[in-house]
């Protein structure tokens, strides 16, 4: 009861605006992810296909990420290549020449 009285007379922090702001940020992000998922899958497959012409890749080591910023967004492509990739490249070129 005393808590109620205190809250009645004391200043009350409205929490709804915080809820609203958190939701707006979160949903903007989640909607983006859902809409983008196909695009990222396509990009990843095509990048993998192009690079694989020259370097033998582990398909699991190709990571494509999209970070949405307020003014600029970044597309991050992270491809891990094996240490002997230039040898496999040379082999591939030889194959193409032959």
């Amino acid at each position: 009861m005393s808590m109620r009285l205190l809250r009645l007379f004391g200043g009350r922090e409205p929490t709804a605006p915080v809820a609203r702001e958190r939701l707006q940020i979160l949903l903007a992000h989640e909607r983006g992810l859902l809409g983008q998922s196909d695009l990222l899958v396509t990009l990843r497959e095509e990048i993998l296909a192009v690079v694989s012409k020259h370097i033998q890749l582990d398909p699991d080591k190709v990571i494509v990420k999209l970070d949405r910023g307020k003014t600029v967004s970044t597309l991050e492509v992270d491809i891990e290549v094996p240490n002997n990739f230039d040898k496999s490249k040379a082999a591939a070129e030889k194959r193409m020449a032959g």
Partner: protein
Amino acid sequence: MAKVLVVTSGKGGVGKTTSTAALGAALAQGGQSVCVVDFDVGLRNLDLVMGAERRVVFDLINVVQGVAKLPQALIRDKRLENLWLLPASQTRDKDALTDDGVGRVIGELRSRFDWILCDSPAGIERGATLAMRYVDEAVIVTNPEVSSVRDSDRIIGMLDSKTVRAERGERVEKHVLITRYDPTRAARGEMLNIDDILEILATPLLGIIPESQDVLKASNVGTPVTLNNAHSAPARAYVDASRRLMGEQVAMVVPAERKGFMDRLLGRRAA
């Protein structure tokens, strides 16, 4: 022409079953022939909220699998002769539902009723996707609370992509029904207000059901709240929502339990 509508939410416990029963009864009270269908296979409750739990013989799964004919599974409401229930199975699980089977049953229901209200299970799995699969309209039940709004947003995305209508390039007409709303707390900034929720979900409002003890009282006795106490605030709100579903223009107010609430709310919302 028959309309198929899903009552859905993503999140559990927000009032899907209560709303299905109340809207179904309100539509039937308005002269429409209505069938409410429980899609919560394994965890059925619409029968209990409608007070028909002891009259279930056959269920949706039996009809989907051809074990029973649709008329054998339909249960007529004891209070309203144009209100019917198609219960879910309590012993099977949701995998017993097939896309084709559900499509066939919905097609058959369309030829018998004006309205088919599908009570979706919570979640985004098979039961929920099949409940929305063949619908024309959707009521997204949302509590003024962050997790419920987030899940509603997710469900809206699914309605726009996973329904037969969406796949044909047609629209599913969507409505948000806000339940357990407390105008006093919203006015104090302690609860998301209506405008915030609608702006975030970008979906039109079907109605605002105030938080009320009458909802629990009605489910305790197995009667839709619109039939149990027609003068109660939630009953009036559900009746208004059902009239909007039928295309009527009804002013959007939050029916209040006591006088003074509404005046305060309107005063603040006008500002």
